[in-house]
């Protein structure tokens, strides 16, 4: 479906300060949400978050359990009242602590898919999906065809007259999806919608969600702690850490240039090494580590004597059987290996230093095999001082 410029301009609402730029679909400013636990301690579930989500974006919130993802989502939906801050959509200001404005969820026109599906057990699949249209007093004639076509698109047309208790978990999730999409909301929020279904259904639904989002053009904010899901869906990922945005950017940018060790670890497996910068060799920084000297091509301005942390991805390590003229190459011994289906994964030792998660395709190598391992200078990320490491 082609979303044209006029489509975007269809929404004339401008922000309160009168700017007539393309209005972000959601704009969150300095949002804070504190909870008080039963024992009186205060939890900063959302701790000063500001994000702008442009129209049509698929933003994924990624972070460990308890970092405040659900809370942020519920604040956007209006199900939780933030402690302070401001939330606006292209329909206007939804929440503003300064102006004591708090639009109730039913007036926000933001759809939501709950982790628990939250289907109404006393209504058929059809009635569940028709509900948002009826609630918005859509013309009766339109409801039937709209619901039917939505169910068909999601491949559950034949379940229309079943009750939610009578269909499978994956089908229930499709119903929940249909219900969130049927009214054509500008924004749809997803709270770990795929965490309760099995791996195969998860893969299928992930592709469908992305497809629907492209086709209908709604803005999606999607919570998960599964990095593959995040990578597969996102146009941008926001990595959340303890109620704050640790980094926000495209999946590629976050993967290859994580701003912190936490982000690096959140987005994928890492192999990390501490070291001291020795000097520069052309545009390569030379770092002294437990493996010896490592050359890193970086734009980071480090100077000799700095303590740094080198972060690499397992996939970038190369395993060879003979010496070839490569930089950053060491002689190594296989300590342990495992066959993981699509690849073999090894722990190798370079003298005393162990390197985990080295991948290789081909025959599985016995323990004790002599190999060469190497890492290209461009695949190494330099992070600041290793106090990051102490914290982690």
């Amino acid at each position, binding site marked *: *479906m082609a*979303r044209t410029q006029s*489509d975007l301009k269809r929404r004339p609402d401008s922000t309160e300060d009168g700017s007539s730029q393309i209005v972000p679909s959601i704009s969150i400013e300095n949002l804070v949400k504190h909870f008080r636990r039963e024992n009186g301690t205060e939890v900063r579930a959302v701790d000063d978050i500001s994000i702008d989500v442009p129209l049509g974006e698929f933003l994924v919130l990624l972070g460990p359990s308890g970092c405040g993802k659900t809370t942020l989502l519920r604040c956007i*939906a*209006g*199900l939780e*009242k933030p402690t302070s801050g401001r939330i606006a959509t292209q*329909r*206007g*200001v*939804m929440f503003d602590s300064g102006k004591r404005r708090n*639009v*109730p*969820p*039913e*007036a*926000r*026109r*933001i*759809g*939501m898919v*709950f982790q*628990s599906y*939250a*289907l*109404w*057990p*006393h209504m058929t699949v059809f009635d569940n999906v028709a*509900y*948002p*249209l009826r*609630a*918005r*007093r*859509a*013309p009766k004639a*339109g*409801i039937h*065809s*709209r619901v039917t*076509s*939505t169910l068909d*698109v999601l491949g559950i047309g034949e379940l229309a007259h079943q*009750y939610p*208790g009578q269909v499978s978990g994956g089908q229930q999730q499709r119903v929940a999806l249909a*219900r*969130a999409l049927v*009214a*054509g909301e500008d924004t749809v*929020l997803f709270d770990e919608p795929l965490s309760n279904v099995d791996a195969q259904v998860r893969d299928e639904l992930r592709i469908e969600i992305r497809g629907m989002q492209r*086709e*209908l*053009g709604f803005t999606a904010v999607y919570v998960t702690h599964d990095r593959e899901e995040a990578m597969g869906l996102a146009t941008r990922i926001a990595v959340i850490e303890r109620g704050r945005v640790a980094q926000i950017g495209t999946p590629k940018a976050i993967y290859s240039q994580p701003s912190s060790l936490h982000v690096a670890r959140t987005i994928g497996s890492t192999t990390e090494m501490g070291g001291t910068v020795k000097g520069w060799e052309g545009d390569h920084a030379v770092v002294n580590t437990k493996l010896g000297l490592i050359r890193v091509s970086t734009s980071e301005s480090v100077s000799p004597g700095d303590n740094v942390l080198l972060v690499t991805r397992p996939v970038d390590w190369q395993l060879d059987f003979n010496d070839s003229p490569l930089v950053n190459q060491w002689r190594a011994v296989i300590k342990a290996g495992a066959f993981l289906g699509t690849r073999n994964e090894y722990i190798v030792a370079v003298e005393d230093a162990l390197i985990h998660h080295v991948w290789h395709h081909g025959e599985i190598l016995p323990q004790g095999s002599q190999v060469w391992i190497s890492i290209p200078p461009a695949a190494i990320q330099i992070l600041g001082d290793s106090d990051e490491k102490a914290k982690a």
Partner: protein
Amino acid sequence: MTIRGEKWPLTASRASVSRRPRGFMILASTLAALITVLILYPLGATWVSVFFLRGDSVTTILTATIREPDIGKVLWNTAVIIGGSVLIATAIGATLAWLSERSDASMGWVTRALPLVPFLVPPIVGAVGWTILTAPKSGYLNLIVRGIASWFGLDISTGPLNPYNWVGIIFVYSLYLVPLVYLPIAASLRNLDPSLEEASTSSGASPWWTLRYVTLPAIKPAIGAGALLALIYALSQYSIPAILGNVPRIEVLTVRIVRLMSVFPAQIGVALTLGMLMIVVIITGLWLQRRILSRSRFATIGGRGMRSTVVALGRWKWPSRIVMLSYFLITTILPFIAIVLLSMQPFWSSVIHWTSFNLNNYTDVLGGLSALGRGARDALLNSLSLASIGATGSIVISAIIVAFTHRHWSNPLARLTEASTKLPGAVSHVVIGIAFIGALAGPPFRLSGTLAILLLAYLVVTMPQASFIVSTAYSQVGKELSEASFTSGASETRTFAKISLPLMIPGLAAGWATVFVLMAGDVTVSVMLASPGRPVVGYEILDLWTFGGLPTLATIATVFTLLSCAVVLGALALSRKMALVRR
């Protein structure tokens, strides 16, 4: 936007951010405010007017209270009867709970039916029934015992059983306190992590050792809670002492307070002072319970769903079962049989005339033939209509208020309402009766002797139970189901009508039945507020007891008991059926 050629946003994208009038919010907060006023106003107004506005100073009232004839004896009687019956009931209730939850003597339906006993045969019917069974001259059980004795040549003219003494009164009190103790203890045993007991057994401890040193300490809070419930209930109990205490002149506090309120002019100052004494006892109990609970934070509750190992009782199994069954025999079946027998007799005498069994009393009561029959019929009709209207109103109001307080928890009105609805549970019903007479009977409201004042008082005294059951039903629906409705764009009214209410129906049906039976069977408030012109069942039964008319009394009691059973069982069946459907 289009999908398969359709324009996607189907509904008008109206400027929905503008605040719509929030119908539900207005309705709910009005109701919440009204209920709060209904609960707080009579208590507050009466209290202020008695102690501050009338001519009598506080010292005058206190002196009058201390000078009240025999007041020391009344307090002593109350303490002995309540202390004794709470202790006995706690022991019996805990034993029954353990037997049915933790031993192989358990019989499924016993567990389910035991808490229903006071609903199936209300205490006033039980007390009358036991009197008919054990009255020294014509008690049916005495007739049987004396009959058997005469075969052995023993000729006894009265007794041997007699309900009109300490033992009789404490016995009947205890019977009706047992379910209150049983319920929390059984629930606690069910939720207790079985691995606690298994760890003890596998360390070589005997079942008795495990019970004494592991199970009992872990369920101590539940035992405390049960005993406290029993205490609160016993303090407000009026029907049992009114029926059994008169003959042996064993007077308790509730009886004295009701008497103070029914003389002319009503001794409201003294009555209220005595009532506050009850409140002090209840609040001390609640405070003690809090302390126990806060100290036993670590009692392990968890592992629900795990079936714990049951203790094999061996040769004690059948004796235990017989004990459990005899509880039903004693509380429900025997008194009910006695009442049914008497209802088919022309009068109560020491000889049962098998030939004169007939249904004349029923035609009299149901047809309203004699003056006595008409009074009884009016009482039945008044009680049933008050209870149906009251229960429906109470449950609907509670449902709306609960939905409101859950969503707008930060609203001060929500918190005040929540606290107020619990208040009548901590204030003896006698005190609520006093408050209603003090605040609403006279000018400006002049509700004295009307059905309206009864209905309002019933609403207030049953509010804690109604809001507790409804609140439980509401939380079982799950927060996300109503949130999903809000994010679908539904207003609070629609969410309540289409989502919360239908899903709560099973819980609401149970709540309706509970409130219905409590209202229809109420004695304490009814005795204080009803009038001969507008009788209700509790009032009429006591009236017939005092001024004669036992067969008529037995007839109303039978009809009433059958109706209560039908309502309770019907509601249970309905709620079970609704809960099964579509799940």
